[in-house]
């Protein structure tokens, strides 16, 4: 089968395209920048452009949709245009093109109101209570996608949690950058348990969802490594692997949240080129527990993570060494 992977220039998108190729399918990647995935047909275009989207879907059997605006800052309209508008356009076009499988790659934040998550399974996406523009627009898009689920177009939502790995420009790069510039405080005592997902595990789960869509369509699945760690340990592990000094200073979580809110608000008024150093969303993410019940995910997708946390950190370290010496 021929599979369209959107947003394949990012860390996870590339890994998904590779995983789908390895499963014996042909892959077309679709995004604004070149995907650089060996063996994939690369089509460049914008998810916000109807003609680009229609063109990308010609002769395609299935879609894995990752393209999204994932920044921690930016205007609400930008988030809505890409995350909600883009998904709606892609779904409409997919229906028009007679495509029958659709994997929507979502985020656990779509159902997260800011409280701790301790061993829960995926709750329904809730745009009204989601925190921040990213989470809210992803929640709206997930509801759109699952709303489009039908016998003709089978849709499943997969929510990998905190994806990281070598070449990561989102989580790892941010952590490393902040740690390097001394701007990565541990929030509170750093003991909140947080699960994360090594990129290859997230990719293999998404590929598994594509294969199992007939059995699992209409549902949402959170995907993680199933190895929660105290947030300080996780951040320290990533910093050590990337060759930067782990964070040493701590600020109380409540103060961080308050500061995050204030800074976020200031950034909206006078946006700079940089992202804000701390957002309330990030503060909450790093000071409350986030780990999940993975039983349904593993049973339904017939999937288990192949790369352990420790192995992932080793691979991250191996990939990071040259860049450290270079910088």
């Amino acid at each position, binding site marked *: 089968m021929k599979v369209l992977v959107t947003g394949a220039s990012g860390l996870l998108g590339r890994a998904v395209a590779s995983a789908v190729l390895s499963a014996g399918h042909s892959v077309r990647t679709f995004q604004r920048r070149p995907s650089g995935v060996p063996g994939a047909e690369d089509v460049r275009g914008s998810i916000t452009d109807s003609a680009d989207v229609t063109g990308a879907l010609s002769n395609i059997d299935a879609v894995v949709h990752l393209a999204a605006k994932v920044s921690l800052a930016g205007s609400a309209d930008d988030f809505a245009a890409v995350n909600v508008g883009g998904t709606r356009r892609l779904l409409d076009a997919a229906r028009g093109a007679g495509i029958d499988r659709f994997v929507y790659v979502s985020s656990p934040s779509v159902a997260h109101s800011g409280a701790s998550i301790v061993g829960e399974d995926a709750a329904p996406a809730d745009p009204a209570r989601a925190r921040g523009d990213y989470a809210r627009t992803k929640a709206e898009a997930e509801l759109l996608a699952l709303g489009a689920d039908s016998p003709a177009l089978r849709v499943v939502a997969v929510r990998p949690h905190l994806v990281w790995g070598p070449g990561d420009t989102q989580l790892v790069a941010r952590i490393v950058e902040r740690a390097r510039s001394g701007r990565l405080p541990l929030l509170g005592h750093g003991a909140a348990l947080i699960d994360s997902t090594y990129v290859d595990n997230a990719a293999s789960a998404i590929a598994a969802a594509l294969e199992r869509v007939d059995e699992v369509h209409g549902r949402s699945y959170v995907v993680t490594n199933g190895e929660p760690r105290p947030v300080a340990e996780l951040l320290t592990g990533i910093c050590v692997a990337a060759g930067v000094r782990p964070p040493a200073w701590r600020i109380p*979580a409540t103060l961080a949240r308050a500061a995050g809110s204030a800074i976020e608000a200031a950034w909206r008024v006078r946006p700079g080129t940089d992202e804000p150093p701390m957002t309330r969303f990030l503060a909450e993410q790093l000071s409350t527990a986030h780990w999940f019940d*993975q039983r349904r995910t593993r049973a339904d997708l017939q999937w288990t993570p192949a790369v352990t946390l420790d192995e992932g950190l080793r691979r991250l370290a191996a990939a990071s060494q040259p860049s450290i010496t270079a910088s």
Partner: protein
Amino acid sequence: MSSASAGASRSGAPASLPPSGLPGLNASFSRLIDVPERHSTTRSTRRWHILDNAPALAELGVQPVGTVLCVHGNPTWSYLWRRLLSSATDAAADGGQAWRVIAVDQLNMGFSERTGEGRPLARRVRDLDDLTNALSTDALGLAGPIVTLGHDWGGVVSLGWAVDHPELLAGVMLLNTAVHQPEGEPIPAPLRLALHRSLLRPATVATPAFLETTLALAHPSLPSPVKDAYRSPYRRAARRAGIGDFVADIPVHAGHESAPELDRIAHRVGTLRVPALMLWGPRDPVFSDRYLDDLARRMPHADIHRFEGAGHLIAEDVDYASAVLTWLGDQPLVGQASEAATSVARADTVPDTDAGAGTIAGIAPVTDGGRQPLWHHLDDLRDSDDPALVEMVPARGQPSRSVSWRLLSKRVRQLAAGLAAVGVSRGDRVSLLVPPGADLTAVLYACLRIGAVVVVADAGLGLRGLTRAVRGARPDHLIGAVPGLIAARALGWPGQRISTARYPAPVARALGVSSALADLIERGRDEVLPDPPGPGEIAAVLFTSGSTGPAKGVVYTHDQLAAVRDALAAQYEVGVGTGLVAGFAPFALLGPALGALSVTPDMDVTSPKTLTAASVAAAVRAVEATVVFLSPAALANVVATEHSLTPEDRSALDGVLTFLSAGAPVSEQLLAAASALMPDARAHTPYGMTEALLVTDVTLTGIREAATAEHAEGGSGGVCVGVPAPSAHVRISALDPTGAATGVPAGTPGVTGEIVISAPQIKDHYDRLWLTNRAADAAVTTGERWHRTGDVGHLDTSGRLWVEGRMPHVITTGAGLITPVALEQRIDALPAVRRSAVVGVGPQGVQHVIAVLETTARSRRVHLAEPDLAAAVRDAVQGPDVAAVLVVPQLPTDIRHNSKIDRTRLSEWTAGVLAGGRMVKP
């Protein structure tokens, strides 16, 4: 004060249906029914509001096996019983026994008619009769068997109906209520206040104060919508006249209008032979335990469960509906009510301690009987001048004291006769708040001899725990030293008080003491003794430490305690003349029963850590002791103070042949260190609990052999506690994936599950914990006595038992079950670790493993383990993923044994910290 004065001005109002949408109330159960008053001169018809699930059962097409008639108290209404109606209907829908449940709103109460006239108790009982008569002629009919269920003053009304309808009655069930106000006892303070003439109407009718006070009694607090539902029929003063009448109708003195009816009911309740259930919330400022005691005396056959922590609104505090349906399902009352009555009467006369026929997993049933009474050595050795007890330091600054068998035997007989003379009778409960020593020993055997039931609650429970235990065990008499007597006085513990020492009259009066032990000895000089108790009679109630939940009263019969003695004698070769150092209270008390010469070393008995090596040596030397019993905490300190031993001390210790550490598991290292002090002694550590003091035993050599074997077998590890004592059978009830022990108890090696044991020396039952007893007896063949220990473990191929932890501490991960002890042992072996506890966080089935450590270099604060230590811990556990490693200054421990880690507290703390909560000390 009579009801007439409280209900001066009031008007009638028709009945109505409750508003819709009350939380938890299925509106389809509500209906109104017209009830002709057959007993009144006016022959009016009254309209009642009732809840009735008969239509729902009819819709399901099921025939009810019987009817539960529920009567609310003051100031609630039938809403109180909503859960029972729903649960009973759900059970019927699920194919279970179908019980019709009818819950009435008494007239002038709830949504029933406001009749405009007061309804004293006798009238209310007739009202209920009118209602059941009307129900029997309505379309749905009403047939027996009927089981009544009442709460508060509804309990009295329901019992009034019950005693008047023997032809229909199949059982009675009660939640906190009372049928009798004992002479000379004060009315509970909250009621006294409400009954005060100037307050009665303002408190009950003009304002909702009484209603609000009652609604505030729930533990935990009621949600606002539920409170609103209770308030809904009593919104205006005119609707609350019935509440004031009800309070005014409490017969506070013999001349009260309702006193004769209450007396009639109280008397007739004592003649009921139908099955009875009492579910009680002890945190009730009005219907306190003393009313439960009164009811229990009237219906000695009743099943009783006290829900520790629950209060007056027990129907809101606990899942009473499941308890009620479970109990109903157990009763043989389906069919004829009279047959059930007969079977209870029969059970009443037959002691329930005999082991019958039948086997479990091929084991011959345990038969009791044929043992010598506990005090027989005191009779046999009554003319012996050999010492029976030696106290190294009986009181601060005093030299050691020796008591001969002759003196001890005489004192026991005198005290026994004296106790009988001051009214301590067979079956009475006597709480012993006496520090261990000769006094305690003499009083204990005196009580046993006359058949009084001794209640022993360890001071280690702490004052709150001790109060709950003493209160819950409802002693008729209390014997204590000053600290105990002061506590008894201050906290209002029940019972006649006897002091260990004589006090001047004003002091004795202040303490509420009626006599001293010396007085008893004087009164008992003639040594005229009542007949001794039979082997099946209750001998003792021993309280558990509370380290595994609220302290429970463990009930032993004389024969069962004698079996404990015989098991110890056989296991450790203790007999007449054996010198025994008793550094562990429970075994110290058994010294005279064993015929041994027991010596109490110089130590603060409430703090085992104070025992030194020199004190042990001195005690050994005093009687040339060959056996030493110690608690693990005492043993640790003895080893730690070894340097102070003189050469004479060491040579005395050379004579010890057996030493034993009981109460909590002991490490091989500690046992080995102690062994070095007593080179000729065999080091034993038994496995047992308050409910079964000796189950298995293992020696130091045995532990070492077992470790090698377990490694070879690839077993799941834990603490090896050895092979069962000759009289004990050990089986394992396998765990299901949720961690519940659902397997049929079996002896298959290598299977991890709950440890269940059978032996002549195990407990008879728990005191006033019917539900707990029922669970303990679940899946056990009738006639056999098995104890479910709550411990998890496995048997190896050599029949050795390995303890892997407690049932609630089993960690249920997505990858399977994990027991903590083996992991802790591996972590404890790391040089940087002093002690560890492995707990689970998260919901059942998806938990993750967390290790909490005390480090060798004491940490002053709580923190995440450094990366190297965390990595070492993860390597050490070999297998399960450890999500976090935390370091704490000190792990919380249970105060009694000072060695068992309080995992419940630790789990809650860990869950809080790892969810992002504050990192305070556990």
